[in-house]
């Protein structure tokens, strides 16, 4: 296939061979990714210069970053693959480990998964499982083990089968927030520490944990800073680019990533001072809330922004839920630091919790903070907890007079036309309100 490529996801055939990758398939996938990326990202107008780094990260998604990970492994560092923000990353970093969010956002591997898993489950779980069994994800092929959790039934039961292909460690996440639930999770955290200590042959100390906390706090602060800059009108960066950065946050080197996000924010602050934005100030400001969008799921953002809208916030795990809460950095002993870590993670308002009223408050807060004009609630098909919770969020929005649109979809392109019509009509109603 010939194309005038100014952007290319780089090929690493030797590396892929070592990792036992289905080279032919991954090569096709990286070409598609390159084309899609060029079309949806590089074509954007008034793009900040600081995005060049993230373009580079994507171009190295199947190679450069993998090389770094494999080198780290040679130094004895443990590599953990995840699909959830309910993973104590501070502990992984404290023990010199690497935490990688695995591939789960492409429709391409769903048919592979459906050979084993039922069709009627969440596309994210199917996509991830498919990436593994089809051997087209270099990250899956590089990790020491997969960290699974119990935040939904589809994941929980899939881990049992995934474990037949790749070592999968499951941590129980409580689904209520009472004192004994917190104690349970502290026990789980301690078991996880044992697992990490035995693999890394290192002992978790207070000093080490503080290092991990500092790295994570700095990373989360940089993402908060980026998100805050989107509240200006015109927004200095597109929603698509921000979603991309939030996705990259899960697999890039955390220290380098933090530095690059801060450099980008320096540039954006200057833009804000000059009143420069990526679109004119009349563009509709939309907040997205709901199921996380794993790389390369850019479907909703593409539609919203191609229709002249601007996504200004993602209330989602790949979004604010990942970085809204920090941890204190002053502790006198390890035990109290671990308790604070549990407290920090128990603030996560994942829809797996019941009740989960704090999420309703959080959505309203983010709506106000981001100066959005409407909320699009995004639910993946079969993502029961987010899907059902939409009702409560919708009721709260109606009470506050916030325009609200519910979209349920999956990774396939077949419903783009219908979603487009809904979003256009939603925009029409918001514009009429402006008059």
């Amino acid at each position, binding site marked *: 296939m010939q194309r005038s490529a100014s952007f290319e996801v780089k090929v690493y055939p030797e590396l892929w061979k070592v990792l036992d990758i289905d080279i032919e398939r991954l090569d096709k996938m990286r070409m598609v990714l390159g084309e899609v990326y060029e079309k949806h990202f590089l074509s954007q107008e008034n793009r900040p210069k600081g995005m060049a780094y993230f373009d580079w990260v994507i171009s190295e998604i199947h190679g450069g970053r993998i090389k770094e990970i494999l080198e780290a492994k040679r130094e004895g560092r443990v590599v953990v693959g995840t699909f959830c923000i309910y993973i104590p990353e501070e502990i992984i970093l404290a023990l010199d480990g690497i935490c990688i969010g695995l591939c789960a956002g492409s429709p391409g591997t769903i048919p592979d998964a459906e050979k084993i898993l039922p069709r009627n489950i969440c596309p994210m779980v199917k996509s991830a499982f498919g990436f593994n069994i089809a051997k087209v994800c270099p990250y899956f092929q590089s990790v020491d083990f997969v960290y699974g959790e119990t935040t939904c039934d589809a994941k929980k039961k899939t881990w049992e089968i995934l474990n037949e292909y790749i070592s999968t460690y499951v941590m129980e996440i409580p689904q209520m927030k009472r004192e004994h639930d917190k104690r349970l999770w502290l026990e789980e955290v301690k078991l996880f520490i044992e697992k990490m200590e035995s693999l890394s042959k290192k002992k978790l100390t207070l000093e080490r944990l503080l290092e991990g906390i500092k790295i994570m706090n700095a990373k989360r602060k940089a993402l908060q800073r980026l998100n805050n800059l989107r509240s200006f009108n015109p927004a200095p960066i597109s929603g698509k680019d921000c979603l991309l950065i939030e996705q990259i946050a899960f697999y890039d080197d955390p220290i380098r990533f933090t530095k690059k996000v801060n450099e980008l924010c320096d540039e954006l602050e200057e833009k804000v001072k000059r009143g420069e934005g990526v679109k004119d100030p009349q563009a509709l400001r939309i907040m997205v809330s709901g199921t996380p969008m794993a790389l390369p799921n850019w479907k909703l953002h593409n539609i919203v922004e191609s229709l002249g809208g601007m996504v200004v916030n993602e209330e989602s795990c790949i979004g604010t839920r990942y970085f809204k809460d920090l941890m204190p950095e002053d502790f006198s002993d390890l035990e109290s630091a671990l308790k604070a870590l549990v407290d920090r993670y128990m603030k996560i308002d994942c829809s797996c919790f019941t009740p989960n009223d704090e999420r309703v408050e959080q959505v309203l807060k983010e709506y106000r903070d981001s100066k959005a004009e409407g909320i699009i609630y995004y639910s993946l098909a079969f993502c029961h907890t987010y899907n059902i919770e939409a009702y409560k969020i919708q009721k709260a929005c109606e009470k506050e007079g916030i325009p609200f649109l519910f979209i*349920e979809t999956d990774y396939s392109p*077949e*419903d783009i*036309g*219908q979603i487009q*019509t*809904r979003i*256009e*009509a939603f925009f*029409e*109603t918001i514009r*009429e309100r402006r008059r």
Partner: protein
Amino acid sequence: MRILGIDLGSRTIKWVYFEGENLKDFGVIESGYNPLDKVRPFFEKIRPEKTVATGYGRHLAKEALKAEVVTEIKAHATGIYYLNPEIRTIIDIGGQDSKVIKIDEKGRVLNFLMNEKCAAGTGRFLEIMALGLGITLEDLSQAPLLKNPKIKIGSMCTVFAESEVISLKHKGVSLEEIIMAIHESIAERIMVMLERLGVEEKVAFTGGVAKNKALKALLESKLKLSIFSPDYPEITGALGAALLALKGI
């Protein structure tokens, strides 16, 4: 000024032509493979100075006809408000989707719901069922409203529902019962959307399926109120598009 409102739907193209504020003509044609080829003959005859397009193919018309675009939702709201300003709830069932729209006293869209991504509860569903029964859409429309229907179609999916209908036929269930079950299945889907959105009087029924008298009567009996339906319900969207061209979007 010559003004054209055009609704490029999934099954048919509807158009409404105004000269100044006077409605001069309107029509319905099959969409075919290339809807724009179907549009060109009358477009060149009318030579509109302003065109607003709506419907599934609206973005096609944007460049080819130099049209402005609005969604079917806004077009139907505008069209029905012109025909009957007392309407607050619209049921629109077209060839490929069904919608429920709530509008305010000025005809502005307040909220809407659309069916999920399949043919259940649409005009296409009715066409396929009629085909399976070897009857016409007019036969469906003339069917009587049964007081105590005994059978139900369980399948949401059009393809499965068709097999269900065929097996009912082979079991010797009467045609009237089967038609009633078909209409029930659409009406129930519409009722769910109406209940989600909240019904406010008065209610209108638009889109091609609004010509189905039996379905209209069934919805009226479920809602326990009378439903307004325009004389030519399928052109409501095109009419709305023309009116929006007239007054500006």
